[in-house]
């Protein structure tokens, strides 16, 4: 018996939010950071972002075809684009094109779709791709970093950074033939190595650090980080994510580096930790990836703190210059366990039911 009226269950009203809108907002929030990167370090990042985006979309379309899913429905949620943008930002500006392609395609196929697509992956796809290329192509990943433009003032003359076409050439020639004038180690790396021999004051007189107003910051990088901070705070205001994760990442990292960095002659000071490298990008854009992070409020704080501590540990005593990728991946492992043990209290209950569900057994009855 068909009825003249449609039968749908409640609720009938919807707030109008959509996943594609959220992803798009996150991408837009990275724009200030991208502008800062381009200003200080040249066209490399933009080219990488474009390359990564195209690769990501093609890869996702291919794998959706293999999985026999409707392509446009899944592509339009912008998640592939977001992963590509984050990878484009995170990878060194002058990394050869194949490094980018490998990173992006691996993250799309292996770190996302093989687990079932969006929402089902346990590990942050961008960071999986990054970690893969970092370990597989260490030379390219460490020597392709650009040095900020102000370091070239006076040496080359009018040229401050490589031009667009020259950047394209470097990236697509596939060789690591970047001249020493344009490449450079990151400030964190530099400080760490120099700290073995020089005092803090001596290090900070060096060219990399003297470009900034205040010697406690690293040239160019602090603006990039501040730009990402601005973008992150905008997302916070739009309630895309909650304050728990970014706050605890920064707090943990800051606390650790303050404790150790008291002795600035031996350890990297906290200002460098917070305002160089991928810290702000990591805290606001990578660690907050909702699919792979913890979901309970207390769990988010523990998760973020874990990332902050691991970033500090790997940076200080590990072999890699930047540790955000590994820190995030390691905490991704822990997220389900953290969730199980940090359930919040529900209305009407005295305390929370934490831990795994217990099965009633015979001993309960006798007791």
């Amino acid at each position, binding site marked *: 018996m068909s*009825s*003249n*009226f*449609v*039968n*749908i*269950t*409640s*609720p*009938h*009203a*919807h*707030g109008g*939010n*959509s*996943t594609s*809108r*959220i992803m798009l907002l996150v991408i837009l929030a990275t724009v200030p950071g991208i502008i800062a990167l381009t200003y200080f370090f040249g066209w490399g990042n933009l080219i990488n972002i474009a390359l990564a985006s195209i690769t990501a979309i093609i890869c996702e379309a291919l794998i959706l075809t293999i999985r026999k899913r409707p392509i446009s*429905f*899944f592509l339009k*949620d912008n*998640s592939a684009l977001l992963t590509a943008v984050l990878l484009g930002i995170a990878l060194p500006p002058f990394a050869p094109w194949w490094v980018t392609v490998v990173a992006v395609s691996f993250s799309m196929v292996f770190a996302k779709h093989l687990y079932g*697509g*969006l*929402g*089902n992956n346990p590990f942050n796809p961008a960071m999986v791709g990054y970690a893969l290329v970092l370990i597989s192509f260490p030379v390219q990943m460490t020597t392709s970093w650009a040095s900020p433009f102000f370091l070239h003032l006076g040496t080359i003359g009018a040229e401050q950074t490589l031009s667009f076409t020259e950047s394209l050439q470097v990236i697509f020639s596939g060789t690591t033939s970047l001249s020493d004038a344009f490449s450079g180690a990151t400030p964190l790396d530099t400080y760490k190595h120099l700290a073995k021999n020089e005092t803090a004051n001596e290090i900070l007189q060096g060219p990399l650090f003297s470009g900034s107003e205040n010697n406690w910051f690293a040239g160019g990088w602090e603006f990039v980080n501040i730009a990402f901070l601005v973008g992150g705070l905008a997302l916070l205001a739009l*309630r*895309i*994510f*909650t304050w728990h994760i970014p706050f605890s990442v920064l707090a943990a990292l800051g606390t650790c580096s303050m404790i150790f960095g008291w002795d600035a002659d031996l350890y990297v000071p906290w200002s460098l930790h917070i305002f160089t490298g991928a810290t702000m990008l990591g805290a606001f854009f990578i660690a907050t990836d*909702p*699919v792979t*992070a913890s*979901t*309970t409020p207390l769990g988010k704080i523990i998760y973020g703190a874990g990332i902050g501590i691991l970033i500090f540990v790997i940076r200080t005593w590990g072999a890699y210059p930047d540790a955000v990728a590994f820190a995030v991946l390691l905490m991704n492992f822990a997220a389900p366990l953290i*969730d199980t043990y940090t*359930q*919040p*209290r*529900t*209305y*009407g*209950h005295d305390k929370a*039911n934490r831990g*795994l*569900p217990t*099965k009633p057994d015979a001993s309960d009855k006798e007791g």
Partner: protein
Amino acid sequence: MQTITLHSFDGGIHPQENKHQSTQTAIAQLPLPTQLIIPISQHIGAPADVTVSVGDSVLKGQQIAKPKGFISAAIHAPTSGKVVAIEKRELPHSSGLEGICIILDTDGKDQWLEEINNGSLAINEYLEADNELLINRIRDCGITGMGGAGFPTAVKMAVQNRTIDTLIINGAECEPYITSDDMLMRERALETLRGVQILLKLTSAKSCLIGIEDNKPEAIQAMEDALHKIHREHHIAVVKIPTKYPSGGEKQLIKILTGKEVPSAGIPADIGIVCQNVGTCEAVYHAVAEGKPLISRITTITGESIEQPQNVEVLIGTPVKDLLGYAGFKQEKSLFQKLLGSKSKTESKPRIIMGGPMMGFTLSSDELPILKSSNCILAPSQKELPANDIASACIRCGLCTEACPAELLPQQLYWFSKAGELDKAEQHNIADCIECGACSYVCPSQIPLVQYYRHTKGAIKDERAAQQKSDRSKIRFEARQARLDREAAEKEAKRQARAAAAEKAQAAKKAAAAEALSKQTTESAEGVDENTSTDAPAETKNPEPVDLEKLQKQLDAAQAGLKKSMDKVAELKASASEDGVENAPIENLDVFEKAVATRRDKVKLLALQIAEAKKLAPPVKKEVSREDIEKKLRAQKDRLAKTKERVDLAKEQGLDSLPALQKGLDKQMQKLKELEEELAQFDKAGA
């Protein structure tokens, strides 16, 4: 207005209110419908028992169904007319199940029951009346909660052993579109407050808080003004609360006004609070002060498909199509829809929702009636409340967790529901979900979360029922096993005891026999040999012959007695049939027949015992005479001769049966020899 500290509950959403459409006009009276469909189950608890029959004429306010059991409510005729049918019809419920309904054809006279009309039922000094009288009146008038759930008010008010310190009146009406409580408070504030006074008296609460959302300033003002008129009451306060969905939920309102939380799986009375809707209060006033039962309610009819959205006072049982007709229902042309290009296939038909957009359910037809708890009929257009898009994957963004007023983790509940992990869902307190829909409202992937939770709650209930059934079966099985084991053990124990006793007797026998052997003859020796070859009968051999004789005597006596009784019965029966009188002899007949039965049983028992005894006893050695042996010998010789003949014949004809016959012959010759030996022995012994 009294200022009390307001608390707040976690979560909540702010959907568009859309209330202004239906508050432009005063409450209208719906014209009398031609037919009313009145379900007997409009409340929580047992359906009411019908007290009228088909063809009865009823007056307005007459009881047509009485409450069944403690948690139940009465049903009354909303207008005068005739009962034309009492049958199963589809109920306005999300399940779409059917239930018994009383179909009433109205006669247009709208005539009240006489005792209500002349005011004889009015309780004038209700604030001094006995509590029991008031509660009985509320029960008799079929008052149930009018906020949506429909719990029988008389049951809620019968607080008995619990102390109530706060009475909370729910005027929040947090769902979008619904304005029936708003209009009620604006126009009938005084009656509502008088009802509140009655409830205050029944619960003997120390204070009463009326919670009204701040999007209803006119209602707040009207209630405040009415409160001034009732100068006796200092305990009632009107409290303005911030507008947030779902602050009208009982648990959430209690938290806002008092800061206390209702314990999970408990009721507000557990923490000394009773909560009632404003509509229920007004109904209580009319019931007590005028004797009028609950037969009508204020319902909002709204939505873009309604030409004149408004609030209407409808009789219970009015079909929805009367309401739609009155307010004007414009259906969208399907051609227009096609031009617009609707997204999903389900949207080609119009939608009628009973309730609000967040928790209301759709109706499958407009013939379904208005119930005591139907506060709104919402007929949205496609554009106004579009159906959800196809759900995409959950990105675990946590917006649902932020919105949940019960402080649950809806996201985890969704994953557990999908995976069928019912134990984890239960541990994450899915039972505390109030199904308000805030999580689905905010979900960016447009996942219909509440549907998953409803399904999982049902699955958990099913699983628990199956588990209980299997537990009971297990207990029964184990008890049976234990019983069988016990019986086997007892049997074993008896057998052991018998064996031990037998051994003991055997040993004693051996000792005695050894003694007797030297004195006695060959016969006794043989007797002893026989005895030792069998175990059990050995102990009973000596007393056996005596018992056997005694048993035999008893059997004879019993058989004689049985015969006597049977004769007597036959005699009685014969005389009775002669006289043709059935009465007097029958009593004696019973007695004699019983005697027959008992004696028969006794005979049977004795026969059985004798058979047993005979079985156990060894075969008595008969005195064998010489003639017997000679007779046997002669017979055997004859047989032998015959067999010899057959063998010779077989030899001649070369038959196959020859070897068998030969064997038979040999056996017979053996037997012959034995008999001859016996004879010889006999002679020797005799001599």
